[in-house]
């Protein structure tokens, strides 16, 4: 028994951090002048690095670790406030919703890659499966749209299970090849197949939930017309919150422990009786389900799916987000998603060069800071244990 009584760390640093992040998000999305955007982006990167290296980061981290529940609600509230502040701005809400949905897909990839070590170069293909499911089911059947989204996820998981057998039998590079081959196969198949629209793609009707049409502007009173993207943004926020809870719970449970064991050393894990195949299948399928769900909602929001949106280039972006953010750290993944999605839109001058700059940046990160922006912390078995 410890002689020293471990005090519960104070909560207020975490609240302050949440408020700071929210205000930053608001300012960043509002910024129009290029110098403003560049300055804010640079400031954010510096702040993150400082946080990572100094005690400030540890303080905030332990505050979060101690009492995650009220802090999580606080974060959700802050996010809702930011969304509300942009209620009339179509484009800002569209960006927010895109970040949130990509975040859900990348969380799925984190489960596959960050926890179980299964590399997946076809994340965008499963995103696309969800999207196409939404397109077909919403147009041709009368299924309620919530169910359509769920079916999109399930179908993505089911198609992923086709790859499971080859994936289980191979290691390393060979496993990577299988997902690459699938990504190309998926896009080519969609392009040559006419029933799914071919290269022209399919239109996707907007979401309708319980009679509330997501695709109509919301009229408040006589003058105020709120953007219809508001509904999607709130829905995506709830979806992301759910995914985060799922991922957190998974990581902290014995399931997560098993996944980690399988990732770190497959042979040793099997020696100790872990059913390696079972855990890999679980991680892969769950990750694809998340990607499929996100894809279905994204398709309904943008109203359009085409094979050219789900190529291997998009899959590579998803993988890079996971690595950039810090493999296995959900918060890092979200930060990286926001960076990758929003920055090129805001910094118009780099719009054309964004792939080039983005790839160059990832190269630098891999050479000099391969753990990513926010590396995954050591597993905490008891609250407050991680404090050094």
């Amino acid at each position, binding site marked *: 028994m410890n002689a020293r009584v471990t005090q519960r760390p104070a909560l207020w640093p975490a609240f302050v951090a949440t408020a700071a992040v929210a205000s930053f998000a608001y300012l960043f999305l509002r910024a129009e002048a290029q110098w403003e955007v560049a300055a804010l982006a640079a400031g954010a990167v510096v702040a993150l690095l400082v946080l990572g290296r100094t005690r400030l980061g540890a303080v905030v981290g332990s505050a979060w670790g101690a009492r995650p529940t009220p802090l999580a609600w606080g974060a959700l509230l802050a996010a809702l406030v930011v969304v509300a502040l942009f209620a009339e701005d179509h484009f800002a809400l569209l960006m927010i919703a895109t970040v949130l949905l990509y975040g859900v897909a990348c969380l799925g990839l984190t489960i596959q890659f960050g926890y179980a070590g299964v590399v997946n170069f076809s994340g965008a293909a499963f995103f696309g499966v969800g999207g196409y499911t939404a397109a077909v089911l919403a147009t041709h059947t009368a299924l309620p749209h919530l169910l359509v989204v769920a079916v999109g996820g399930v179908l993505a998981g089911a198609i992923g299970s086709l790859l499971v057998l080859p994936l289980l039998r191979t290691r390393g590079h060979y496993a990577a090849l299988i997902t690459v081959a699938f990504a190309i196969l998926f896009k080519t198949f969609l392009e*040559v197949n006419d029933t799914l629209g071919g290269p022209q793609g399919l239109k996707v009707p907007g979401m309708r939930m319980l009679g509330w049409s997501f695709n109509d502007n919301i009229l408040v009173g006589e003058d105020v017309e709120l953007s219809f993207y508001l509904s999607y943004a709130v829905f995506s926020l709830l979806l992301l919150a759910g995914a985060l809870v799922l991922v957190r719970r998974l990581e902290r449970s014995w399931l997560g422990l098993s996944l980690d064991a399988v990732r770190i050393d497959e042979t040793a894990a099997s020696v100790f009786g872990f059913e390696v195949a079972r855990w890999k299948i679980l991680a892969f399928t769950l990750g694809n389900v998340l990607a499929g769900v996100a894809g279905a909602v994204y398709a309904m929001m*943008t109203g359009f799916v085409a094979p050219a*949106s789900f190529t291997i280039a998009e899959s590579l972006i998803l993988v890079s987000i996971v690595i950039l953010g810090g493999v296995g750290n959900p918060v890092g993944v979200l930060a990286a998603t926001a960076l990758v999605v929003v920055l090129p839109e805001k910094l118009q001058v780099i719009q054309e060069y964004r792939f080039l700059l983005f790839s160059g940046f990832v190269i630098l990160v891999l050479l000099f800071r391969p753990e990513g922006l926010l590396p995954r912390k050591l597993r905490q078995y008891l609250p407050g244990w991680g404090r050094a």
Partner: protein
Amino acid sequence: MLPRPLRHAALCCALMLAAGTAGAKEAVKLVFIGPLTGGVSANGLGGRNATDLAVKLRNAGPKAKYRYELVSLDDECKPNIGVQVATKAAADRSIVAGVTHYCSTVAMATVDVYHKFGLPVVVWGAVLPDITYANDYAEVHRVNGTMINQNDTAAEFMTGLKYKRWAVIHDTTDYGKGHNKYFSEYLAKNGGRILGTFGVTADQQDFSAELTKIKELKPEVVYFGGTTPLGVRIRTQMDKLGVKAVFQGTSGIVSDAYIEGLGPLAEGSLAFREGAPMEKLPGGKFFLEQYNAQKYNDPPEAYGAFAFAAANLVMDAIEKVGPDRRKVRSELNRTRDYQSVVGTITFDDHRQNAVPLITKLVVQDGKWIVWEDSDYAKGKRKLVKP
């Protein structure tokens, strides 16, 4: 009652204020969307330059009520990118109207976006009929013609030259499929026979499989429904595999890039396009003069004049009813007998302009020239005999 000098001063101030605000014109934004990069960028850049020309001329003129600004966006001739940039433009409330799209595939995908946000647009280069006829969106208008007339004339003309056997290659986008559908229909009516139809993807590199099958079929003409990059590849590989047939294309291959890509192989390729050749258009010479005076890097290409006309149509509507999307939309819907550089523009009940004249073109000595003016028509040269 104010004392006299003060009244005069007040009047002067009021007048100056009025003059001042009259001098500062309100800025109105238009958006241009077209393929500025990629295989058909020549056409996109030509359209963009033509629209830019229209805006410049309007701003330089004395009578404009507003100062027009052009925002140009690149759709890369890809439907998903087109939807993205269209959403961006339409979501921006400061943009009042748009001059949009050369690629039919993109135009088909974006009509819903424009309708959702209520942005009135005028299409300047996409020829697929469904863009205006398959929907009832008041926002979507088109000044150039559709591919129906193109293929009708083509079928008549080619059977008139006594050709009987065709092989059809088309790309699998809605554009290529549309061409395939209409040409097959009209060819059947004119007594031609199609021996085989092959669908290819829009970015396909290797056609040896399809062309080997076509070689077996021994057609007299190979009809190609698609755009320039694919046309260049197919024509090259036809030569490689020894497929001897006349190469007949659509408006999609009428560009300098086609000739540049093929060199001497382009000789004798045929194509059909709606609208008179630039020099014979009513405002054609004026347009060309003004265009060349601006010294753009790229020529206006086949549809530049249509983009110019579309831009002027839009700006005239804004001048009349003000920079309000709904009002501009209604005004555009009412267009009848509007005089433009491409002739009279009248929108039918589907907001489509009728362009009945079809020009037949053939490549001779490295240039696209009108069939009637060519050596082929006069009998001095012969098209390929299989």
